[in-house]
């Protein structure tokens, strides 16, 4: 069957409308060319130099770290852990409207030894805090924690004898505010954690103010003096978190 193709004329009235690639841009003609090359590859017609060029163009090179953190960020195993009201909203995150499976995180593990994310969904009372700490200690590195809701980040609505803020006894990566936070808010927190894990976190002020590369470089003597002063007052020298 003969298919007639004709090249369309120059761009329509608004070349910057989204969703329609500008035919004048190099990407469009490249795309057609690459389509034809892919078709030839599948038929086995691509040979020699064209084949080599095709393979080079379709291979992505990256560092092992980036690849591993990309995989890690997309395959978290959260711990099935629900404390109080935020657990009801956490169940709604897992449910179909805001689907945790979209991020690949639907495989919740019941055992802390097999999980790598603990979501503190609810208020942590003084009786429960040692239990949570023990569960956190049982998790294997690399492990992350999301503190969901106001009650575990600070003590939320209840500022009294019975509650304790979670970052007093364990390190937390992302705090999600709300009482309880909407499932969409929790999804935002999840995306931020994922960015953090995949090292694509662009929330630092240098990125926001376009100031990357403006770090001050201290001279050797200043660094030595500062670490001496540090060691004098700090029990744990910088970077050692074994006691945390």
């Amino acid at each position: 069957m003969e298919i007639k193709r004709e090249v369309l004329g120059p761009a329509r009235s608004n070349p910057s409308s989204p969703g329609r690639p500008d035919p004048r841009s190099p990407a469009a003609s490249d795309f057609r060319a690459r389509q034809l090359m892919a078709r030839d590859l599948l038929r086995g017609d691509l040979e020699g130099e064209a084949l080599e060029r095709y393979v080079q163009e379709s291979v992505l090179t990256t560092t092992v770290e980036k690849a591993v953190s990309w995989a890690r960020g997309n395959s978290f195993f959260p711990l099935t852990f629900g404390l109080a009201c935020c657990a009801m909203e956490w169940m709604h995150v897992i449910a179909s409207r805001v689907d945790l499976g979209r991020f690949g995180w639907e495989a919740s593990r019941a055992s802390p030894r097999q999980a790598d994310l603990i979501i503190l969904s609810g208020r942590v009372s003084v009786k429960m805090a040692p239990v949570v700490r023990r569960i956190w200690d049982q998790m294997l590195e690399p492990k992350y924690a999301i503190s969901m809701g106001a009650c575990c980040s600070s003590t939320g609505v209840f500022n009294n004898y019975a509650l304790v803020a979670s970052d007093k006894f364990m390190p937390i990566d992302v705090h999600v505010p709300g009482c309880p936070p909407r499932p969409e808010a929790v999804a935002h927190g999840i995306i931020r954690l994922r960015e953090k894990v995949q090292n694509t976190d662009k929330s630092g002020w240098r990125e926001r103010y376009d100031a990357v590369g403006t770090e001050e470089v201290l001279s050797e003597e200043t660094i030595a003096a500062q670490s001496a002063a540090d060691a004098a007052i700090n029990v744990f020298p910088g970077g050692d978190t074994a006691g945390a």
Partner: protein
Amino acid sequence: MPDATGLELIAHELRDANADAILGTEFQRRRAVLLAAPDHVPTVIKALMDKGYTFVTSVHGVDYYPEEPRLGVLYELLDMRAVDRISVKARVSTEDPRMPTIVDLFPGAEWPEREVYDMFGVVFEGHPDMRRILMPEDFEGFPQRRDFPTGGEPVLFTYNEENSYGKYQ
């Protein structure tokens, strides 16, 4: 609720049975309360259960600070046939916070009495399992008493943030 006269009749009956069981009655906005002496609470409740108030809905603890005797224990009774409620109040002081238990009459009062012990310190004699229920086992103090501080974190402002726990000195 039994109305005011009904309440008085019940109080008189119970007082006839046992002279120092009932210390008084309160009737306020359709709520009938019998004031009982702490040691006679099981007999009063048994008599009320025989009258038909067979269901002990709840056991509340109250701290009447600064009125003495400070600690009050309220029993809410419900008559399911006549749909009637009556309450029994007993007050003990903090120096001697002991009362007999009603668990033999109504096994469902076991946990509420443990909660009153946990929160106020009222010891129910004869209770099978007098332990703390909501607070950790080794907690000291009785949280719901009025002189126990609410606790919590102080709110940080610029004038007091120097002394907070996380500030790098």
